[in-house]
């Protein structure tokens, strides 16, 4: 029986990796993938806490909705990436300055 702390520690580790990737990388695609890693880590924590309280399914339900929201986020995010690439021929976040001036 693996204790819940192991799962929570793994989830925190994955979240940190995703957060560092989001802060350090300048490629939009890698930024989106880092967000994916972070949301996956959150899902793991939710499911692990649900395992520690088996009276209801709230944690798994929440993780389900996180997955649904994430699918929507990725679809819109990648559409924005394509749109940005058409306008600027770039995938760098710091060249996305259409609102400047």
């Amino acid at each position, binding site marked *: 029986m693996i204790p819940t*702390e192991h799962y929570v520690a793994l989830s925190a580790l994955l979240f940190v990796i995703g957060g560092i990737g989001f802060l350090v990388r300048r490629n939009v695609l890698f930024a989106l993938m880092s967000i994916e890693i972070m949301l996956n880590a959150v899902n793991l924590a939710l499911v692990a806490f649900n395992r520690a309280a088996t009276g209801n399914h709230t944690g798994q339900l929440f993780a389900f909705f996180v997955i649904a929201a994430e699918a929507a986020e990725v679809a819109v995010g990648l559409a924005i990436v394509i749109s940005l690439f058409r306008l600027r021929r770039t995938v760098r976040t710091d060249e996305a300055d259409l609102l400047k001036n």
Partner: protein
Amino acid sequence: MAGLGYAYFFTCATIAVLGALFTVTAKNPIRGAMGLMSMVICLAGLFLALHAEFLAAVQLIVYAGAIVVLFLFVIMLLGPDAAAPEDQRGRTTRVLSGGLFALLAVFAGYLVVRPAWGQAHRLPSVPRDFGSVDAIGRVLFHDAVIPFELSSALLMVAIIGAMAVARGKHASDAEKSLPKPANEVKP
């Protein structure tokens, strides 16, 4: 029996962490997407160990089947430009911000884990249909009907929004319609 459980957990956890690190550090976006997929599959395995069979299936279908493939489609659409070399400007600030974030996260994790570390672990026994499609479906269509319907509306809006955004202007059209830079506008 317990040793087998630990071996399974640590195998999945190691591959997941390695996949995440590979994703974050990869030069080529396709390799990054592959790292993401290995992480997603390992997390689905951990969901199975946590008695969340339905979520494990959803994780595989939605992530490995849809999201990673969507990433791959976009990477192929962008072509070689998708692997733009990282520019080195502001690198110190970025690395510093990442390190600071990691330090804060380690501290927060220590505070969270410390009270329970080393105590006797007693997880509750699992009801017979915990996490099964049956049980989740019951909860989903009984307690969470309204959020469920709202999430379908969210996905609908996301589809329409993605279509509207992605079939926008080309660079050649944008030249005409974009306002001129401020220093060229006559007073």
